C-alpha cells in the first residue's frame, strides 16, 4: 500500500443522478452516493434492489445510462474495468471472477504481473504468501489451480487480489457470504485496517450484524432508488422498514404476532 493516500474525510467518490436501464427495466434510477476517505459505506437492500448493478457500474463493467460519477473531484467515465482499476477502484465481485485454470499466484497478479516481459515468479509468490498470511487465509498451496480451492478460499483469493493494486476505494460484494467464522472475522478486521489506512470501502452484505459491526454509514437501496441513509446506531426495525419500503412488512408482522402471542399468555 502506498502512503500517498488522501487525507481522512476527503470526498473520494461522488455519484449524482446515476441511472442504469436494462431495456425497459430501470435497475438504478437517480442514485446519489458519496464515499469519503477512511470511511466504510454499507450498501444494503433486498434482492433486486440494484446493489450489484451499482457495484458493476463503479467497477466499469456496466456503463450508466445517465448521471455523473466524480472521482477525487473530477468527473470520470468508467468505460472499462481497466479504467476503474487504473483510477484506484478495486472490486471483489460476487461471482469472484477468477480464472480456474490458473494458479493462485497468477490469479492474484492477473493484469498486474511484475516485470511483464520476464515474469518475476519468485517475487510474486512471496508477495502472494505475505498477503494471504495478512488475511489469515487457509490456503495450503499457491501453485495449485484455483479450481481445486473451496468457495471460502476463492473468496479470500479474490479479496487479496483487490488489495494488490494499491486502490483508493475497495468495493466488496457480499464478501463474507461464503466464509467460515474465523475468516469472516478476519475480513471484518481487514475492512477496519483498510479504513485506518485512509481508503474508502463500499461493502454489500445481507448480514446486518456484519454491516453494523464495520459500517460508518448504511445506505439503503430499494427497487433501484435511494432508500435512505442510516448510522450503525439505527434500530433493526428502521433498517428493515427502509429495505422493504414499509413499516408494515413481513418482519414487523412477525414481531407484532410474537408480541401478541406473549400478550395472550
Amino acid at each position, binding site marked *: 500500500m502506498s502512503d500517498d493516500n488522501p487525507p481522512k474525510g476527503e470526498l473520494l467518490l461522488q455519484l449524482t443522478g446515476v441511472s442504469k436501464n436494462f431495456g425497459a427495466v430501470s435497475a438504478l434510477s437517480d442514485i446519489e452516493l458519496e464515499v469519503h476517505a477512511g470511511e466504510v459505506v454499507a450498501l444494503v437492500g433486498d434482492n433486486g434492489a440494484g446493489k450489484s448493478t451499482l457495484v458493476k457500474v463503479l467497477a466499469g463493467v456496466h456503463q450508466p445510462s445517465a448521471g455523473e460519477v466524480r472521482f477525487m473531484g473530477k468527473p470520470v467515465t468508467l468505460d472499462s474495468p481497466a479504467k476503474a482499476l487504473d483510477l484506484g477502484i478495486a472490486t471483489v465481485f460476487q461471482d469472484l471472477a477468477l*480464472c480456474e485454470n490458473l494458479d493462485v499466484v497468477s490469479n492474484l497478479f*492477473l*493484469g*498486474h*504481473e511484475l516485470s511483464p516481459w520476464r*515474469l518475476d515468479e519468485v517475487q510474486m509468490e*512471496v508477495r502472494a504468501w505475505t498477503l494471504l498470511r495478512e488475511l489469515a487465509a487457509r490456503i495450503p498451496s499457491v501453485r495449485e489451480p484455483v479450481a481445486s480451492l473451496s468457495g471460502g478460499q476463492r473468496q479470500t483469493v479474490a479479496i487479496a487480489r483487490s488489495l494488490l493494486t494499491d486502490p483508493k476505494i475497495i468495493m466488496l460484494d457480499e464478501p463474507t457470504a461464503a466464509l467460515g467464522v474465523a475468516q469472516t472475522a478476519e475480513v471484518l478486521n481487514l475492512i477496519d485496517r483498510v479504513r485506518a489506512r485512509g481508503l474508502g470501502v463500499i461493502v454489500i452484505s445481507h448480514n446486518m450484524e456484519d454491516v453494523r459491526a464495520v459500517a460508518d454509514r448504511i445506505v439503503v437501496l430499494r427497487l433501484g432508488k435511494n432508500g435512505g441513509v442510516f448510522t450503525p446506531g439505527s434500530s433493526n426495525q428502521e433498517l428493515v422498514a427502509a429495505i422493504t419500503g414499509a413499516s408494515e412488512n413481513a418482519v414487523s408482522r412477525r414481531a407484532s404476532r410474537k408480541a401478541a402471542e406473549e400478550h395472550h399468555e
Partner: protein
Amino acid sequence: MSDVKLAPKPLDRADERVRNDDSLTGAVRLFIDRVRAGDLGILPVAVGLVVISVVFSSLNPVFLLPNNLVNLLFDCATVGVISLGIVCVLMLGEIDLSVGSMSGFASALVGVIWVNMGLPLPVAIGAALLAGMVIGFVYATLYTRLGMPSFVATLAGLLAILGMQLYILGPTGSINLPFSSPLVAFGQLLVMPAWLSHGLALIPGLVVLFGGLNTAKRRRAAGLTAIPLSLLLIKAVVLTAALQFAVWYLNLGRGVPWMFGLFVGLVVAMQYALTRTKWGRSLFAVGGNREAARRSGINVRRIYYSAFMLCSTLAALGGVLAAGRLASSSQQAGTGDVNLNAIAAAVIGGTSLFGGRGSAWAALLGIIVIQAISNGLTLLNLSSSLRYMITGAVLAIAVIVDSLARQSRATHGRG
C-alpha cells in the same frame, strides 16, 4: 503468527496439509499424481512416438535410418510452424480453419512476386507475412467487433483465400522456384555443421541447470522451497544426453536441417512468450475465463487480435517454407491435409480445444507424431486414401484423450 520454531518453515510449506515433494521420490510421486488427475503433459506423445517407431521400423527398417529422419525433420518444419500459430488460437478456445489456405496463398505470393514480377526475395517473403497479418486482423475484427464465431469466419476465409491463391497463380497454376536460390536450398539442402549442432544441443541442458540453480537460489533467499540440486542435475544430464544422441544420430545422415533449427527457435521463443510474459499469462486467462480476464483489467480484444494475427502470420511463414521445400508455388500448396495436420499436431501435443491449456512444445511434439505417421505410411507404399483414414483416426484419438483428461481434471479439481 504464533508458530515459534527453531528453523522457520519455508513460506510455501507452512501449511501442515502440504506434502513435502522436494525430494527425488517426491517429484516422481507428484508426477504420478498429476497424470492420475488428468494432467497428462507430454505422456501421450511420448507413448505415441515409441509405438510409432516400433511399428513402422518393424514393417520397414528404412523408417529409423538417419537420412529418413532428416527428411522427416525437413517436413516437420513447414507444417510445424503453422501448428505453432494454431496453438495460440486454440489457447483462447478459438480455431483457425484457414491456415492451410493461408500457407498456400503465401507460397503463391512468393512465387508471383519473386519469380514472375522479379522483385527481390525478401520483399516477396515480407509481402507474404504482411498478407498473413492482414488476414489475421480481419478474423480478429470479425470476431471481436461483429461477434462472428471464429469457426465460421475462418471457414469462409478458407474458401476466400484459396480463391485468392488460384487467382494470383493464374491459368498456368504453378510457378517453379529456381533451384539455386537460397529459399529452395534452405528448404531442401541446408544442414548445420556437426560441431554447431552438437554445440546447440548443449544449450538446453545448460539453461535447465544454470537457470534452475539461479531460480533455486532466489527462491531460498526469499524463504521458499526450491528444487533440489540432484533433481536439476538429473534433468540436465538426461536432456543433454538425449539431445546429443539425437544430433549424433542425425549427423550419421545429412545432419540437422537449418529449417528445423528455425522451427525449434520459434517454438522456444513462443514457449517463453506463453509462460514468462504478461501477454502469455493473459492468453491463458482469456482462454480460461474471458469475463474474469476482462475484469482484471486485461484488454481482451487486444489479446484476440494478437492471437489471430500471430496465427495467420505463422501460417504464412509455414507456406513460405513449404514453397522452398517443394521448390514451387502451385495450386496444390496448402490444400489437402495441411490444415488438419496443423490442427491435429497442436491437439496431439496437448493443447486443449477448450482453451486455457497448452504449450508451444505441443506444436513440436505433435507435428513429429503426425509426420512420423505420414512418413511411415508413405514408406509402406500405402495409398493416400489409407493415409487420410489413419491420420483421421489418430486425430480422433487425440481429441478423445483431451476430452477424457479434461473430465478427469474436473473431477480432481485441477481446472
